[in-house]
């Protein structure tokens, strides 16, 4: 018992503000396409493992939801048109949180008050996103300091954090869990698999991204999104980025 107290005292408080830690120089965040002089050779889009790059109206564009931030396109572009930044705050709002000039969003946030209960739902992930969600509970991030917590049942949840491409074998679990969650409810697609469904291409066992089955309100890109990116997404959804 004495040793436990001693360890607690010597370790001290480790909890920090969510984006307090410095970003590593090598961290691979958002890829940015310059306006010119892209020669539209499409070598980058051919090299992209998830097909996140495509020519749209003559301009190379990146689908952040499908990007796995591997940086292969940046390496391959001979024109040095692509640049990888350290921006990880890529979460975007959709669905209920975007509609009707924010009125619905205000109502949802008012209903949820200052607390949010989350249920995790793995519909075919590689477990990296799931481990990052677990990390939110570690004493450095301490998710509960924001009034947010993971709960054991969809019946108790306001938000479903969904990870993975929707597999054939988990489609029923996804639909039943969504159904079991009381309204108002929000759905967050966590990571490239859930947000795009394209990480492994087409397969007999994959049915696509989460929004093919249930409406998604928050997309958080990343492979996996680092814990700070998840927290950013949660804060954005709750309008707490002040």
């Amino acid at each position, binding site marked *: 018992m004495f*040793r436990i107290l001693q360890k607690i005292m010597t370790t001290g408080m480790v909890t920090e503000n969510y984006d307090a830690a410095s970003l590593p*120089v090598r961290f691979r965040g958002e890829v940015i396409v310059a306006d010119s002089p892209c020669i539209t050779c499409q070598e980058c889009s051919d090299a992209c493992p998830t097909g996140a790059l495509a020519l749209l109206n003559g301009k190379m564009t990146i689908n952040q939801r499908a990007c796995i931030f591997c940086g292969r396109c940046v390496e391959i572009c001979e024109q040095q048109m692509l640049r990888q930044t350290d921006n990880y705050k890529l979460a975007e709002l959709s669905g209920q949180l975007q509609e009707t000039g924010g009125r619905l969003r205000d109502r949802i946030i008012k209903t949820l008050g200052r607390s949010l209960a989350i249920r995790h*739902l793995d519909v*075919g992930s*590689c477990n990296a996103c*799931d481990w990052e969600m677990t990390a939110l509970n570690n004493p450095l991030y301490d998710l509960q300091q924001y009034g947010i917590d*993971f709960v054991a049942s969809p019946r108790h949840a306001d938000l479903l954090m969904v990870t993975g491409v929707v597999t054939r074998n988990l489609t029923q679990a996804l639909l039943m869990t969504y159904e079991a969650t009381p309204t108002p409810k929000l759905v967050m697609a966590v990571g490239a698999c859930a947000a795009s469904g394209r990480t492994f291409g087409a397969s007999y066992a994959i049915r696509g991204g989460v929004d093919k089955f249930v409406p998604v309100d928050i997309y958080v890109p990343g492979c*996996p999104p*680092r814990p700070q990116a998840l927290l950013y997404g949660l804060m954005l959804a709750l309008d707490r980025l002040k």
Partner: protein
Amino acid sequence: MIKNFTVSVKDLPATANVCYSKSQHGLMAMFANDERTLNGNFAIYCLFDGADKGELLLVKALLDAEQPLEFPSLTPIIPAAAWYEREINDLFGLTPVGHPDLRPLVLHENWPAGIYPLRKDFDSQTVVPDAARKFPVAHAHGEGVFEVPVGPIHAGIIEPGHFRFSQAGEAIIRLDAKLFFTHRGIEKAMEGLTVDQAIYRAERICGACSVSNALSFSLAVENITGVEIPERARWIRILVAELERLYNHVGDVGNLCAGLGFAVGVSNGARLKEHLMRLNEYITGNRFLRGMVIPGGVRFDVPGDLLLKIDKALGRLEPDFLQVVELLRENEAFLNRVNTTGILPNRAAKDLGVVGVAARASGIDYDLRRDKPYGGYDQTDFSVPVYHSGDVAARLWVRVDETLESIQIARLMIERITAAKAILAVPIPAAIPYSSGIGWSESARGSNVHWLMLAEGNRIYRHFVRSASYPNWPALTVAAPGNIIPDFPLVNKSFELCYACLDR
């Protein structure tokens, strides 16, 4: 060294039996390949561990596609073959005759009978209609016996699996696990990709084994093409592989405490793991060390200032970790829960071909890094901890000892990287079409084996993945019965198996 044998399918049991009896650790993997367009056969491959250091035995049995699509089951003589044969039956429609339990495994009740997705004439774009097959779960009968179904969606932040407990009061008398919920058909999705595209999918099979999967895949490519990677790349690979083991083991020691509600252990383990994850991000730009290992070498250098940072981090980790472990070792209440709980007997571990931490906790002195050395481990000294009690405690202490060994190996790599020339990768030449190769590594959970066959243009013809969790999952259903159901989370966490790696 890999010794190859080719036999006809009727001679498979005899040949397999000889290899099995001569092997150190039995059957490592078993898989099929549709080679009808190449030679008119389906092929069934059995990979055995050889008796000598570095020796592997690969038996290829040819099944004439014109004959009935069946082969004699090996399960009656080699229990470890049971799941592999069920998987072959599911995905290829090749029936193991004499298999004692031929229920579906990978494809669930929603998959129609008679469609075999890993055959070459099955197109990935095919829309397969939903079906309602039977998917029976094993259970016990008797007066007062009741069932507890759990999952696939669990209460914590855990991957999906369904457990069916047959209970006599609090005691578990039987456990069956329905898994493969996250089956993504990755092996099929790999086909047709070039190896430099496929590496990004290979390292995304599993988050917690990202390096190990990328490493086994890359070693398989190098095995086929005969590539020798630069010295610096070799040491960088070992460094990241050991860092992967470190964050897993340190995190798992903490997580195990969650299985019995010891909050101080949980939060300290999580704190130490977080520091390691952040270190990973400094090295490879990704917290799961993704993006580093590629066929031919590594993608990024680890320069002097980073090596210094790693060395300092390890210097802080070691005493901190030992203090946390001390809190467990001297805590009677903790020891009461972990000692004699969830015993996996040595015999069962051998029969099931259990690997990694779980094997070494049940008296099996086996580690691929030492026994089948790969990628430079033959020049690296370290000791392999072995415990004999086979309980939760043994699996915990194996992890603790291995953590300390990994820190030493990582330190040695820091010295070696400093001294090695700054060449990071070599190009991969074109492979002879339809040549195949094996790559293996020891992940935090045990041996991880990838088998590859490459077609023209280094495009993947077949990719087979056998992660460490594959042989270990059936062991959990052996270790749990006899314990009380509240101890199941603890037993489960002590094995710490991946679902994603298994399901693919």
